Each structure stands twice: as structure tokens, then as C-alpha cells.
């Protein structure tokens, strides 16, 4: 747990202690005198970087309750700021705390306003603290720190008066229904022990009457006085308080019980009368009512932000470390799994090797043998010679003696305009041929020549092996877009002429 420097400032004295998580140590007292102030400065050097929690124990204090309309957020902050400035113009040490919400119809908020009205009390100590550059967490009223006892001592009485003796005097804090109402500090007069007790008892009785006068308590109600006797000096006080008073009941809590029930050790208790409250201040996170002006606590704000950032760094680092750890754990698991699988694979491979010893000798793997043989067979059956094409053409040419084949271009490949140079996809292969032919015809007898050519192509198409046959080029271009030339001289003077034409023929795939 974080360390704290807990201080209790009174008009002529400062008590200091170091809270180290669960215990209070190094309890010292310093007077207003110059040597003690220097000693305090020296004391602070040992607490470098430790945040300071300062408690005010002075008669120059003010507590008042106000009921304000219910608000929250910025509206509440602005309203409280206005109210505090209105109430406490002469001091920077003031604060407010929401104590309860009223049950009435408007459900207004009830606030406790508190201030230290004489700031000279803090001047020497704050000057030394500022010089030491220690972060100041806040300035808190001692009576509100006292409230921490109610839960620890299990005090459930309706009207409760906590009495304790401090360096500054006797402090009486009245608590009704568990809530702070009034607190008074009575400075001790320097006289004999008996008269001090008597005056303390008188103060308690006066407080009782004061409460009745304020109508905070009724005269018939019982007031339970709890006397915190830190040094065994108030043993006779309970009897003196209740003497002749029916509406008062007093209980003293001796030092050993304070030690047992609260936890503060006897060494600290004996070192200072403020030790119990220093201990309570150390125990508490931070009282809600902080009277320190923001300028005074800026160093602590920085410290908190720094701690927050460090905490965030730590959390991020831890989260990342946990995640990385989880990942590495996974990696180890996966590597182990891979190793196990690898062992099984080796077993299977060994088993396979064992089996292969009975295999006949082979120049290649079985799959390679099979694929190679099958592919070779397919290549073999796929190949073609042009004999079928020759037979088809010869058979038809025999029927047309006037026609003569001058050249032939045969191809075997993929069907389509580009033949075998087409795409690499699997398509049926087929034979095709381009025939360059000539026809001996009478001059000018175009109709007869064209009819013969068309008849030849038709006959080719009818062959069972032919997929397609067509004229690629006619002896005459009869297209309307082409030029046609010739002579109509006397037919008897002219000899038979040969007409060239081309025929394309494609056999069915698989032929």
C-alpha cells in the first residue's frame, strides 16, 4: 500500500507520522519554535515523494449545514462554488460535502460546509512543505476523520459524543444517527490534572446543554459519551461527566482497547495525543471534505495522474504479458502436438517401407508408371495419318473427271479457325484439309461450272466421315461488292478454259 505522511496541525503544534500501509510509525511532535520547524524540515527529507495528508485541529473552524436544490454535474459544482465563496470570503481553506438527500417533496440536498477561518495556523508548516516539494493531498477537518471510529468501535447509539484529548485541547464531536453534526475544541488550561479533568467534564455537560438548546437533542434523550483515553489520563472522567446527570451515559475506551480494536500500536499512542487521529487519517482513503485550495494540491494531482499512467502501463504490460504467455503456451502445445504427429508419421513411413520391400523392382513410383503408360497409350491412339482424308477426296474426285487437284494442305489438330495453335484446353482433335482445285469448263458457261463445284462439295458433305465441306474460293467472285470483268466474244472462237477454286473440308472428330 502507498505510504502517506499524516499531519495534525493545531495553533501551536504539529504532530506528524508516517503511514506505511497498515501501521503508523515515526510519530513526532513539533512546536511553532524555529528549531522545531527546522527539525520538521529535516523530518520531511526522509519522506521524499510521499503525499501529505494534513488535518486541522483548531478552534478557528466553522461547520454549517445548508439545504440546496438538488443538482449534479457542473451545475452542482458551480452552485457549491458560489455558495462557498459567499460563506467564506476571508479564507482559502474551505470545502463542502453532500451529507444526505431530504425526504421532503423537493428532495433537496443537504450539504455540510466547513472552513478553517484563521489560515495563520498553517502558514509555517505549509511554507516548509512547499519548500520540500512534497505533494499535498488535502487539508481535512479533524472531526470528520474521527467519524472513522464509529464503524470500528461499532457505535450505534443515536446521540453520540466522542471526546478525545489532543495537543490543542479537548475535542468533542457530536454524531446523530451516524452523521456528523457539531464539533468543539476546548483548549486545555495549564493547571493540575484534577482541575483539567473537572473542566473537561464541565465542558461535556455544557455541550449537552448546548445541544438541547439547539434542539439537536431533547433533554429526555440519552447522550452517550465515548471517551477516547489514549494515555490513561481520563480514567476518572466518565464518573465525573455522568455525576448527577440522568441523561448522560459515559464510556471510556482505555489505551489497550484502542490498540486492540483500532490497531494503532501503543508506541505511537504514547508518542503523541494526536496519534489515534493520525492513524485514522492514514487508514482512510481520503475524507470527502477537502478544504485545500486547488493550487495547494496541484502537485498531488500530478502525482495521481502519474500514478494513474504508471498503473495503466503496468496493466497494459501485465495484459500483454498474460496474452504473450497464453500465446507461448499455445505454441508449446502446438509444437508438442506437431512432434507427436511427426512420430506417428515416421511410424507409418517405416511401416510403408517395410511393405515396399515385398514390391517388385520398379524404375519409378507406381503412380508414375501407370500415368506414363496410360498417357503414352492415349498419345498413340490419338495420332492420325492423312490416309482417311485421301480416301474421302479420291472417292469423290472419281465422280468428277473434269476436276483436278493441284495441291492439298492437311492438318490434324484442334477444331476451329486457328487449328492446332488454339487454346490449351482439352478439345476434340480433327483432321481438316484445304484443297486447291481446277475445273475444265467451256468459256462463258459459268452456271454449269458453278453447279459442278457445288455438286462436288455437296457430295463431299454427304460422306459419313465428313463433318463439314464448303467452297473457300469460287472461280468467279459474284459478290455485289466486287468487280467482275470478262469478254463476250464469239463462243466458237474460244477454247475450253480451266477455273481455279478452293474447297475446305473437315472430318468428324475421332475419324
Amino acid at each position, binding site marked *: 500500500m502507498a505510504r502517506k505522511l499524516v499531519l495534525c496541525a493545531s495553533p501551536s503544534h504539529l504532530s506528524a507520522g508516517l503511514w506505511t500501509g497498515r501501521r503508523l510509525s515515526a510519530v513526532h511532535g513539533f512546536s511553532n519554535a524555529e528549531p522545531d520547524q527546522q527539525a520538521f524540515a529535516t523530518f520531511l527529507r526522509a519522506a521524499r515523494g510521499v503525499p501529505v495528508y494534513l488535518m486541522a485541529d483548531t478552534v478557528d473552524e466553522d461547520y454549517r449545514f445548508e439545504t440546496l436544490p438538488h443538482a449534479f454535474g457542473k451545475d452542482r459544482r458551480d452552485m457549491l462554488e458560489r455558495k462557498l465563496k459567499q460563506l467564506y470570503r476571508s479564507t482559502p481553506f474551505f470545502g463542502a460535502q453532500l451529507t444526505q438527500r431530504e425526504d421532503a417533496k423537493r428532495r433537496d440536498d443537504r450539504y455540510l460546509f466547513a472552513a478553517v477561518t484563521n489560515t495563520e495556523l498553517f502558514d509555517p508548516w505549509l511554507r516548509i512543505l512547499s519548500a520540500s516539494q512534497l505533494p499535498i493531498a488535502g487539508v481535512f477537518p479533524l472531526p470528520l476523520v474521527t467519524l472513522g471510529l464509529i464503524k470500528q468501535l461499532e457505535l450505534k447509539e443515536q446521540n453520540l459524543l466522542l471526546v478525545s484529548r489532543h495537543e490543542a485541547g479537548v475535542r468533542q464531536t457530536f454524531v446523530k444517527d451516524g452523521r456528523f453534526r457539531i464539533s468543539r475544541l476546548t483548549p486545555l488550561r495549564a493547571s493540575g490534572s484534577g482541575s483539567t479533568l473537572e473542566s473537561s467534564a464541565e465542558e461535556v455537560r455544557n455541550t449537552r446543554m448546548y445541544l438541547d438548546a439547539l434542539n439537536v437533542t431533547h433533554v429526555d434523550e440519552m447522550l452517550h459519551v465515548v471517551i477516547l483515553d489514549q494515555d490513561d489520563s481520563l480514567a476518572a472522567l466518565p464518573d465525573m461527566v455522568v455525576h448527577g446527570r440522568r441523561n448522560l451515559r459515559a464510556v471510556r475506551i482505555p489505551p489497550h482497547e484502542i490498540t486492540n480494536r483500532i490497531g494503532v500500536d501503543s508506541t505511537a499512542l504514547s508518542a503523541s495525543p494526536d496519534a489515534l487521529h493520525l492513524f485514522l487519517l492514514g487508514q482512510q482513503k481520503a475524507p470527502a471534505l477537502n478544504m485545500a485550495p486547488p493550487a495547494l494540491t496541484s502537485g498531488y494531482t500530478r502525482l495521481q495522474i502519474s500514478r494513474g499512467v504508471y498503473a495503466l502501463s503496468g496493466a497494459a504490460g501485465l495484459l500483454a504479458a498474460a496474452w504473450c504467455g497464453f500465446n507461448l503456451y499455445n505454441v508449446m502445445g502446438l509444437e508438442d502436438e506437431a512432434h507427436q504427429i511427426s512420430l506417428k508419421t515416421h511410424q507409418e513411413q517405416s511401416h510403408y517401407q517395410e511393405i515396399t520391400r515385398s514390391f517388385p523392382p520398379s524404375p519409378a513410383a*507406381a503412380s508414375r508408371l501407370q500415368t506414363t503408360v496410360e498417357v503414352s497409350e492415349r498419345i498413340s491412339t490419338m495420332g492420325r495419318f492423312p490416309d482417311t482424308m485421301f480416301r474421302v477426296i479420291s472417292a469423290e474426285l472419281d465422280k468428277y473427271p473434269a476436276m483436278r487437284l493441284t495441291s492439298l494442305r492437311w492438318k490434324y489438330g484442334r477444331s476451329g479457325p486457328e487449328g492446332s495453335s488454339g487454346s490449351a484446353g482439352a478439345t476434340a482433335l480433327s483432321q481438316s484439309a484445304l484443297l486447291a482445285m481446277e475445273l475444265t469448263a467451256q468459256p462463258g458457261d459459268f452456271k454449269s461450272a458453278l453447279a459442278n463445284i457445288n455438286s462436288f462439295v455437296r457430295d463431299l458433305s454427304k460422306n459419313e466421315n465428313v463433318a463439314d465441306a464448303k467452297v473457300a474460293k469460287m472461280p468467279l467472285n459474284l459478290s455485289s461488292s466486287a468487280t467482275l470483268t470478262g469478254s463476250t466474244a464469239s463462243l466458237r472462237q474460244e477454247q475450253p478454259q480451266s477455273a481455279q477454286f478452293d474447297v475446305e473440308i473437315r472430318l468428324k472428330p475421332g475419324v
Partner: protein
Amino acid sequence: MRSLSSRDVRALFQPTLVLVIVIIVSIFALRYTAAAVKRAQQGVAAQERLLVEARKKVQQSDQEKNAIERYVEPYTELERAGIVGDEKRISWIDALRTANSEVDLYGVEYELEPQQAYAFKAEVAADSLPVHQSVMKLRFELLHEGDLLHFFQALAAQKVGRFTVNECKLQRLAVNLAIPVNQPTLKAECEVAWITIAGPAPEEGKS
């Protein structure tokens, strides 16, 4: 909201620096470990594939044995015939010469191109099998078209490799009546593809 003073900046510098360093280191560490997890997962997947493969080989060992017994002889025959393995170009040319002689042609001019991938690999479903072809262009003269078929049949009968005829162009030659019989009447230009299948790489080894 109040602005930051120089004291605030000084006070927050170190924690902010620590936070930034922690975040950067964390990101790197997380990325590194996440990558390690991914690598390990891939390693497991690869090992599982190997195991499945090994088990499959064991399960199929009977079929494999049968396949070897069935195909080793035809395969060896293909090797002997020069279809599997390296090209035997000398044998092809010798075979050309022999075929020319047997068919009584007037001589064959040839031009053998560099080896390339087989053009009809998809049609024979060769998949990953390395099938190659070397295109040979032939020019020769014929007495008649029947000699063309006799020539290819004679070439195939040499059994020096597997070839397919891709293209042939026949052109009629002008007949010189002054020369007696047996003069060529046709000029032929053909394209033949000699096909070879590569043997297994040395590391593939025997099964």
C-alpha cells in the same frame, strides 16, 4: 479545463514515456507471439497432411503393388522404345534415312526444332506428367500420294520413338515429258512431332 504547465509536462513526461514504451514493446511481443502461434499451427497442419499421406500410402500399398506388377513391363517397353527418357535424335534421323530407303523416296530434308512442351497435353490428360515434343519439318518428293503413307508407316516401324503428324502440304509438280518414268509428281512438306515423356527425377526414386 486548465492548460498544462511546464511542471505538469515535466511530471507527466516520464510516466507517459514508460506507457508508450510498454505499449510498443507489448505490441511487438504480441505480434511476435501471434506469428509464432500461426507458424506452429501451420506446422501442425503440415504434419497432419504428411501423416494422412503416409497412412494413405500404407492403405494403398496393395493397389500400389498391383500397379507396379501391371505397369512395370509396359513402362520398361516405353523406355526401350525411346518414348520415356531423353530424346534419341540420332535414332530418329537414322530412322528417317531407313524409311526413305525402304519407300524409295528421292531423299528427305529435315529440320528439327528445339524441344518444347507437348501441344496436346490437355487432350491426353497428362496433368503434371512432363510430356515434351520436338517438331520436325520434312521436305521430300513423291511419286504418288500413296508413298507419303508408306513413308510414315516405315518410319513408325523403326520403333525409335513416338511421333504424330501434325500437318502435310502436297503440291503437284509439273511433269517433264522428256524424262522417262519414275520422276516425282508431288512435293510434300510435313510437320511431325516427336513426343517423349521424361523419366522420374533421381530423388523420386523407386517406390
